[in-house]
């Protein structure tokens, strides 16, 4: 099935979970990445039980520091 991941269309296995997608996409430090599906946040505890559907839009939101100590 086709889903959109970070703005790109991807072909993934039917019923893939958020956790499996994160592994497949080699998401760094997945335990600190926020995830939205179709503009709704997914609770961290629900990553492994949330199955994606055809046409879903998934975004990974990464912590990013940078700048200056202040």
């Amino acid at each position, binding site marked *: 099935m086709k889903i959109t991941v970070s703005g790109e269309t991807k072909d993934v296995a039917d019923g893939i979970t958020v956790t499996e997608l994160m592994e497949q996409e080699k998401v760094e430090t997945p335990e600190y990445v926020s995830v939205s599906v179709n503009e709704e946040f997914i609770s961290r505890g629900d990553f492994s039980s949330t199955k994606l559907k055809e046409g879903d839009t998934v975004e990974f939101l990464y912590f990013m520091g940078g*700048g200056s*100590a*202040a």
Partner: protein
Amino acid sequence: MAFTNEQMERYSRHIILKEIGVKGQKKLLASKVLIIGAGGLGAPAALYLAAAGVGTIGIADADAVDLSNLQRQIIHSTADLGKPKVLSAQESMEAINPDVQVNTYQEFITSSNIMDLIRDYDFILDGTDNFPAKFLINDACVMAGKPFSHAGIIRFKGQLMTVIPGEGPCYRCVFKNPPPKDAVPTCRQAGVIGAMAGVIGCLQALEAIKYITGTGELLVGSLLTFDALTMEFHKIRLPKKDPDCAVCGEHPTITKLIDYEQAACDWKPGEKV
């Protein structure tokens, strides 16, 4: 307040823009922006905001200029090594534009000083490098109802979002809590390409200018990411404000500011963040 001939000339490229004009330029001159962090992000933002004629610019940073800063913190020069960053930044801003009143705060932000720091400003720019500071700025701005620009950079990537309390999600709606110490790489550990600070810091300055002049659409409810390796910008539409957010939700559980502890880009043992 009428413009002098010199101001008409200095700001002519703004004034000619129909979205800014004389009215917008007057708003800029009357506005007050606080930049927290005179580092990678704060440096380009401060220079462009000063050049743009933002009338009052506050700059907060406790550090002194270090040799490793100069690869990206273009508001400081080699001659400034060892000088407090806020003074070096003030000199650069005043040199660009004497119209600007620069207020310096040579201190780290904490739960006890941040409310006083942000009180008199219209817009806050988060140019800090560490998560305790980023969460502190978010929570304080939400509590005080102050709009701010959040940004982060690492390696060849950068991102930013604008928060207007009550109008869209806050930083905590998206990221909940700071990651544990050392769980997420910092610039010091992972590096950052210097020009990335320029790209993202300038985008923050643009958001401040747009907010002040009421121009265009802000990154409220969106997180804009930029990858320099692929040269791709990606605007992520964020979920709506989280009703369960600990600070801006319907029943906030955070009602007092928190000083988290954590390492950061320029953090050295024994230094407070």
